[in-house]
């Protein structure tokens, strides 16, 4: 069974196995196909039209399924690898071990934003940015420049406290847990982290930066934490909603998986610290 761990607690062997598997997916071309898929949804998901991956209730189950597919690809390279998560409320500075040269490498240089150290630096020749929205072929970051602070634990807790999963009009203007976690409204959690990292992470081709997966693995964990906190709260909407993926509708691009299939992460993996279910306390 896959156990997703906090990136801060990985051993150096685990870090090396994870980054090596990423480099292998990059080499064999499969990595870039994930970037292409993500950008396609980023460009086509709209508030007033069909929306699946973002700005909609299925933001969470869509990314859960997307990460599962990516993790399965990593495990075909190295069966010992699981996606780590980045708790950005705890590891919230550019000095975090996350950004060390033995893991993801650090921020970009001032002149052009280019990341110069770590396994994903352009100079290694092993991490070219191929699926891109501008001409630059190198990984870029501007840690902490686009927005000064990552979300705090108190801000996360204020969003986890929201009892309703999502609300009409089921888009970027919605009230409720999903849109506050996604960040289009309120204290802004997920979106703000993309902006804090900067570079490709602030664009539609954000999976070009390997931190994408660790950011989304934590967003995914926050969904699990929220479920444990609100065992009576269901995925919404239940049925019959135009342009929106209801509980039992299939999601593109897979077309064989529904939000209902994605509700229980323990069918696929556990976390190093599983949320304590509120239900078990009753």
């Amino acid at each position, binding site marked *: 069974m896959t156990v997703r761990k906090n990136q801060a607690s990985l051993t150096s062997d685990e870090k090396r196995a994870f980054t090596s598997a990423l480099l292998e997916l990059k080499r064999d071309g499969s990595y870039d196909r994930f970037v292409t898929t993500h950008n396609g949804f980023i460009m*086509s998901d*709209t508030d007033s039209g069909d929306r699946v991956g973002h700005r909609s209730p299925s933001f969470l189950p869509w990314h859960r399924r997307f990460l599962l597919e990516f993790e399965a690809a990593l495990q075909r390279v190295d069966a010992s690898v699981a996606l780590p998560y980045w708790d950005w409320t705890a590891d919230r500075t550019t000095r975090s071990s996350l950004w060390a040269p033995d893991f993801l490498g650090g921020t970009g240089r001032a002149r052009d934003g280019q990341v110069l150290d770590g396994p994903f630096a352009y100079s290694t020749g092993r991490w070219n940015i191929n699926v*891109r*929205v501008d001409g630059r072929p190198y990984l870029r970051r501007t840690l902490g420049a686009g927005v000064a602070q990552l979300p705090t634990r108190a801000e996360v807790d204020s969003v986890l406290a929201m009892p309703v999963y999502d609300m009409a*009009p089921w888009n*970027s203007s919605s009230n409720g847990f999903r849109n506050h976690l996604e960040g289009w409204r309120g204290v802004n959690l997920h979106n703000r982290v993309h902006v804090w990292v900067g570079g490709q992470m*602030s664009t539609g081709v954000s999976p070009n930066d390997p931190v994408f997966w660790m950011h989304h693995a934590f967003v995914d964990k926050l969904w699990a934490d929220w479920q444990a906190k609100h065992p009576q709260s269901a995925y919404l909407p239940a049925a019959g909603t135009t342009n929106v993926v209801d509980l039992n509708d299939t999601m593109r691009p897979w*077309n064989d998986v529904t939000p209902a299939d994605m509700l229980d992460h323990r069918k696929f993996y556990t976390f190093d610290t599983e949320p304590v279910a509120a239900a078990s306390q009753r």
Partner: protein
Amino acid sequence: MNKITRRQALGTTAGALTVLGLTAAASSVATSAAATPAVSTPPGTVDEVYQGRRIQISTGGGGHHGGHHSAGQPTVRIDGRELHIMRNADGSWISVINHYETFTEPKLLARAAVRDLQGAPLVPFGGAA
């Protein structure tokens, strides 16, 4: 399932539409350079040089590309290349360059993209340059 059909249609036409878009951009650069934009630009349009890049925003052109988003939305170009933009339900804007940060008007969105680009050209929609 019509959702699939729509995506497939989008995928097959994107390349051809991009070529048309670039041709249109090139000719508009040639003609408007001789004109005096301050006098003749309709409301909502922008034609400015910002940090050495030409930002052009035209509204209501229509039909420049199919299916990405609703009709009547402005077209934003940087040095003649179209920047993919999207309007949020609250009226704010995002682009494919600044996808997770909202801006109150397209001009500010375009300027933010210019700052991020640091001189790099946009590439046609869809990624692989």
